């Protein structure tokens, strides 16, 4: 009996690999290459020990602690320590996202689509699909850990020894496995894949916030977050392996839970029952905009809360930031000191650029929803009624624009509301809000790119996500890694005036807006002319 539950796991594992034979290598290679490139870049940028000590000072900054974790090994700041401080957390998050998406795609999403039913009607075990998914996701993470570990060691950078490199890889791999198992549990508990992905991401986000709070405070709280465990390895300095063991143990508990839940439930059901819906549509649900909003409502509300919390958590470190900045004067690299601006102010643009890019995610999701709907053959319900294509696309577009306003407003308001409590001087709401809203034109360009792709290349809408990732890398890491300026200039976020440090540059903002308008109009024209899926 027990054995028959897993029958054909091997075949299904190979089938999973076959289905993702492009996706998995793309994820692994891009993350590995990014890791190697950044590691090599540090050696060029900070050649002397003095350069590195300069960077070490910035790591004592609470803003940095909240963002990337508490610095360690700062007395003798080696390349390894720099690498681990700057890159480990964000890479771990990326690996977690990859693992969550993989697991839900192969479990609940297949189940929702009725494909698991087909598989189960064949002589396969009841737990074989979950088992195959778990085996493959673990295998992929182990492979990634080895690639990164051996690769970093092979780069031959001073202070990046074999043990440290392997630990670096292992920390990434076990984080991926942990969040894969979180997703596996939610995939059993919830009846729909979007909910499973959403809740898994929520756990990831909360883990980040708990760790941030812990790292800015006394550090105890960080041990309640799996992302805190990653950083607790203190790779390349102390090389603690026990957080890896801790993460594996926690992941094992989740795995057992997921298998148990899968074993006791019916196919297609979950543990959180679906509520009955309304009998009739509300007054809001009367056209493409109403529909577009209705189907994204839950997601948008979750994002709104998330963005506000991120803003508020960055705002809450402003007090610490202030006292820290009074002590330390050496603030090169991350920000270029400007005489006239207060030191706290100089961190606002950096925080805002990150929040603006995070806020772009729900905005793009709401535009691209239209293509998702098209692929699921639901747009034809609308287009076969008295709805023009222009009106349909305009519905998505309007929601995206409103979302861009709402998300940036929440980011700015969150930052201000928490910041104003902890800062001694007055923190002007207008200043903060303006620094947030100035990113609107950049978001509009991203919307424009998305609309253009919807109009002309609906199969390739994923490119806009790649563009956002690129923007994140060049804008966030650009200063640190001293990328040539043209690289940042390729991203709309690189052109936004750094309020409140810089003056407002209406010219740049107008040009971005015009580009956004042109892209959008072109996209609308394309959308009217092409075949629907």
């Amino acid at each position, binding site marked *: 009996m027990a054995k028959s539950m897993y029958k054909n796991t091997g075949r299904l594992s190979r089938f999973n690999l076959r289905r993702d034979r492009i996706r998995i290598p793309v994820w692994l290679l891009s993350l590995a290459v990014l890791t190697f490139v950044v590691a090599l870049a540090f050696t060029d940028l900070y050649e002397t020990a003095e350069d590195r000590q300069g960077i070490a000072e910035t790591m004592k900054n609470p803003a940095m602690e909240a963002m990337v974790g508490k610095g360690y090994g700062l007395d003798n700041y080696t390349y390894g320590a720099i690498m681990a401080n700057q890159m480990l957390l964000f890479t771990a998050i990326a690996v977690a996202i990859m693992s969550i998406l993989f697991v839900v795609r192969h479990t609940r999403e297949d189940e929702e689509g009725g494909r698991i039913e087909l598989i189960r009607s064949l002589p396969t075990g009841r737990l074989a699909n979950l088992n195959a998914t778990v085996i493959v996701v673990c295998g992929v993470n182990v492979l990634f850990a080895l690639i990164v570990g051996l690769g970093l060691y092979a780069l031959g950078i001073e202070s990046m020894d074999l043990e440290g490199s392997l630990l670096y890889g292992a920390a990434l791999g076990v984080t991926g496995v942990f969040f894969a198992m979180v997703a596996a549990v939610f995939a059993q508990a919830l009846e729909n894949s979007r909910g499973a992905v959403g809740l898994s991401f929520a756990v990831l986000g909360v883990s980040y916030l708990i760790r941030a709070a812990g790292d800015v405070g006394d550090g105890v709280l960080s041990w309640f977050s799996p992302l805190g465990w990653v950083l607790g390895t203190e790779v390349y300095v102390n090389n603690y392996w026990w957080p890896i063991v801790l993460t594996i143990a926690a992941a094992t508990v989740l795995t057992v839970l997921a298998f148990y839940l899968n074993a006791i439930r019916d196919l297609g059901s979950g543990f959180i029952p679906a509520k009955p*819906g309304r009998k009739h549509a509300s007054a809001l649900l*009367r056209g493409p905009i*109403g529909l577009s909003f209705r189907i994204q409502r839950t997601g948008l509300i979750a994002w709104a809360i998330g963005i506000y919390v991120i803003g508020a958590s960055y705002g809450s470190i402003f007090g610490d930031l202030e006292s820290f900045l009074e002590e330390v004067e050496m603030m090169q690299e991350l920000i270029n000191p400007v005489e006239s601006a207060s030191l706290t102010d100089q961190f606002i643009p950096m925080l805002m650029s990150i929040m603006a890019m995070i806020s772009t995610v729900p905005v793009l999701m709401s535009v691209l929803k239209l293509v998702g709907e098209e692929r699921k053959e639901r747009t034809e319900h*609308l287009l076969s009624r008295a709805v023009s294509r222009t009106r349909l696309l305009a519905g998505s577009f309007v929601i995206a624009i409103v979302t861009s306003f709402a998300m940036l407003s929440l980011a700015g308001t969150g930052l201000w509301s928490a910041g104003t409590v902890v800062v001694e001087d007055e923190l002007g709401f207008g200043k903060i809000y303006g620094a947030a809203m100035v990113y609107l034109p950049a978001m509009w360009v991203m919307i424009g790119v998305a609309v253009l792709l919807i109009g002309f290349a609906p199969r390739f809408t994923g490119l806009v996500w790649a563009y956002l990732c690129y923007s994140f890398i060049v804008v966030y890491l650009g200063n640190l890694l001293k990328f040539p300026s043209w690289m940042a200039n390729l991203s709309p976020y690189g052109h936004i005036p750094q309020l409140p440090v810089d003056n407002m540059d209406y010219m740049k903002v107008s040009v971005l807006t015009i580009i956004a308008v042109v892209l959008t109009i072109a996209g609308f024209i394309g959308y009217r002319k092409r075949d629907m899926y």
Partner: protein
Amino acid sequence: MSLLKISGLTKKFGKFTALDDVNMEVNEGEVFGFIGPNGAGKSTTIRVLLGILKATEGEVKIFGKDAWKDAVEIHKRIAYVPGDVNLWPNLSGGEVIDLFMKLRGGNHKDRRDELIQKFDLDPTKKCRTYSKGNRQKVALVAAFSLEADLYILDEPTSGLDPLMEKVFQECVLDAKKKGKSVLLSSHILSEVEKLCDRVGIIRQGEIIETGSLDELRHLTRTSLLVETKQPIANLKQLQGVHDIGEKEQALSFQVDTEELDNVMNHITSFGIVKLESAPPTLEDLFMRHYEGPGKAGGAS
């Protein structure tokens, strides 16, 4: 008067020709059956009609307007039910029906509630929990709740039980009584036979036969089962006789409809004891057109 007119429609996806010089007409007040095997181009044709796909060549007019350019104007007067009804998993059936009705405009709440009851649909359930048949009911209720001049139905009953299929047929006949037109793409040939005035048969992107059922029946064969006092001589040599088989004392064979008179005259002379004849069904017609690689239509 034709409400819908397709002339010389060709649709290519890259190098693949999905539709090749399709010509078709649906007249006012008629129910037109659109039949063909899977992948023949029925849904592609319908999507061109809806302005969802753009014709590579040819002219497609509904109500005298261009299906691509005036899609929105046309859609104000048509109702469409797709074969695969994909709905939003987190909306309830009732919400979807209301949304579809609002998109078309017009207020027909009584009709809607009546149809929901007739189709025995629970509108408070989320679409994700509906079966295929129930999703189809949602689309059917939304379509028939409104007054439309042309109903485009793409295999609308493939998931319905026989009881619901009857309700559906009533809806179609009701629309026809009001002088509305229906384009019904279907696989259920008995349904097409019952409802349709004319049929068009499509195969591999080409319309191979159009006409009223009676007209098309001329193109097919009648099955005969005959028992005679003396054995029938020279049956094989007669023109238009096919598939001769022996059943106990009787002979069974098929006769081309146009040769029926000659054949009957011939066999009467052998003294008929028993005669059973079955009219050609649409199924026979269908089978003859689809079996084998050649165009069977030319052989009859």
